[in-house]
């Protein structure tokens, strides 16, 4: 059995498999199927400063090997999160990666400030800044579509999170040059990157002949987008290996349903893997992915998970 432990910018985890933000709520529902403490880390639903009702419904559309969602970051707000959700996760012995967002860079800062003050803070192994969300100050353009906006958010978040606790910037693939955004985030102090958030998509309801989602656009996720996730990870890690981007750990996410899928992201350079949409198909998916990933490593005779990280860059055929 391979040694499945992984280290993410100082955060040591017993295994590399996590939930994905927004795909496991804040743990209690999933806990009925798999103990949250068995996960490498539990990633929370993105939390913002205030309670948010989210978008009107319909909020989802099934797509070929994927789905579209437009939840609109519904959530209880950071205070309720610190009062209820985080202590519950701490009690279960979960290692928690808290996903945070704001509609302005300053709001990110406020959320982090209150989070750090939470009595349950000790279970937090990292903060994931969901910069793939709309920036009201910039015509609602997603922060991660613009290097400058990305930089400002990461800077504020990094300043407010105590040293020793890593900050991950979660990037959207909907950009011309993801390496440039990665560069901005790392330059601003991010300790690592999470890739990818959903792709912007629309489904038309062909009975009603109008967009199926009440909010028109939604985020595309699931196995359909896995090749885009692998590509984004590959490009960023290739740049790190080429010395044109600071070296930092990458958390891979996008379309992972099986251990072999996870291995694709890992071989492309991810030091940990999140399982999102697949959980809707199989509530046990994160645990199953871990078991299957272990079996894949054994099959390849890899003694340590760490040996698989980025291995495809070495085995690549040079033409």
């Amino acid at each position, binding site marked *: 059995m391979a040694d499945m432990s992984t280290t993410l910018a100082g955060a040591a985890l017993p295994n590399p498999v996590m939930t994905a933000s*927004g*795909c*496991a*709520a804040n743990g*209690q*529902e*999933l806990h*009925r*199927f798999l103990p949250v403490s068995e996960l490498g880390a539990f990633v929370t*639903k993105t939390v913002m400063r*205030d*309670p*948010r*009702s*989210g*978008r*009107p*419904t*319909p*909020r*989802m559309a*099934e797509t*070929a*090997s*994927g*789905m579209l*969602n437009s*939840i*609109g*970051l*519904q*959530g209880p*707000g950071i205070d309720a999160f610190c009062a209820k959700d985080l202590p519950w996760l701490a009690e279960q012995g979960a290692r928690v990666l808290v996903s945070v967002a704001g*509609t302005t860079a300053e709001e990110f800062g406020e959320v982090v400030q209150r989070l750090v003050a939470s009595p349950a803070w000790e279970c937090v192994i990292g903060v994931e800044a969901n910069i793939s969300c*709309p920036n*009201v100050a910039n015509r609602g353009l997603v922060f991660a579509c613009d290097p400058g906006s990305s930089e400002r958010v990461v800077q504020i978040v990094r300043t407010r999170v105590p040293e020793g606790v890593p900050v991950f910037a979660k990037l959207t693939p909907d950009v011309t040059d993801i390496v440039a955004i990665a560069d901005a985030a790392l330059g601003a102090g991010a300790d690592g990157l999470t890739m990818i958030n959903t792709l912007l998509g629309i489904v038309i309801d062909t009975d*009603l002949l109008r967009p199926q989602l*009440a909010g028109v656009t939604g985020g595309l996720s*699931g*196995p359909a987008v896995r090749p885009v996730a692998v590509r984004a990870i590959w490009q960023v890690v290739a740049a790190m290996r080429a010395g044109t981007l600071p070296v930092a750990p990458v958390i891979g996410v996008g379309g992972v349903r099986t251990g072999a899928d996870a291995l694709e992201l890992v071989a492309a350079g991810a030091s940990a893997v999140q399982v999102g*949409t*697949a*959980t*809707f*198909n*199989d*509530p*046990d998916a994160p645990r199953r992915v871990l078991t299957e990933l272990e079996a894949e490593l054994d099959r390849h005779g890899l003694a340590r998970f760490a040996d698989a990280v980025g291995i495809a860059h070495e085995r690549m055929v040079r033409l």
Partner: protein
Amino acid sequence: MSSGVVQVAGEVVANRRVGAYQQLTLLAPGVAGLARPGQFVALAVGGPTSANLLRRCFSIHRVEEAGSDGGTVDVVVAAHGPGTRWLTALGPHDAVDVVAPLGQPFPLPAEPVACVLVGGGYGSAPLFWLAEALRERGCHVEMVLGAASADRLYGVAHARDVADGVSVTTDDGSAGTRGRVSDVLGEVVERTSSVVVYACGPMAMLRAVTEVSAAYGAVAHVAVEESMACGIGVCMTCVMPVTGDDGVTRMVRSCVEGPVFRGDRVRWDAFDGGVCRVPDDAVGAPRAGGH
């Protein structure tokens, strides 16, 4: 939230046509013992090569506790899109992954009161074992079953076995009274002095049932059917505005806090034209500019 839920590799025991529907009996060890009327199952569809990732949800029609085989659960399925077409085409021994039971059951009255159970189309599916449970408690039970046409009625004969009285309506008059369930409901509630109405069916019907019930002094418990991506409470797609005991409206998940809600707590005013808006007074509603 009930934590009594299992995920099991189920198997089709039988699949038979009933009117416009297919009734599937699934071997699903462990489900029967946990399930209560009003709860539902979430079934994976399409097999190992499926492009349809999301589970499909169905009200539990009945359960049979274990003999040696671990117990079965029945669902009544209307073929509609790819998932239900796949399910309705299954044969004995075919595999179906089952997550169940899910959601909140119909609340049973503490006293042996009179009740009316209202079902629209396949929405009547969960009402028969509810009727049995109510009669075991000494309740007087009447059923009102409605549908667009006779073939879309489900379980009229069965209803006569489990209820003390049955009314039938169809939109086209092909069976029973021409019209809607809500057209006859008031009379039934009044005649039986019912204080509780249970209903399952399309949203528009649930709204009408709630209004008629209120008008006749009964409380309605309605099982809603919102579009669900996960069925287990983790995705936030299935929300709807419901007013809590504190008088505050929240966007709550119909898969874990429902599917059964008190009808008078549902913010029907937010539903319009296939869209459900967030009421302005809901917790966290967008302010001007939106989010």
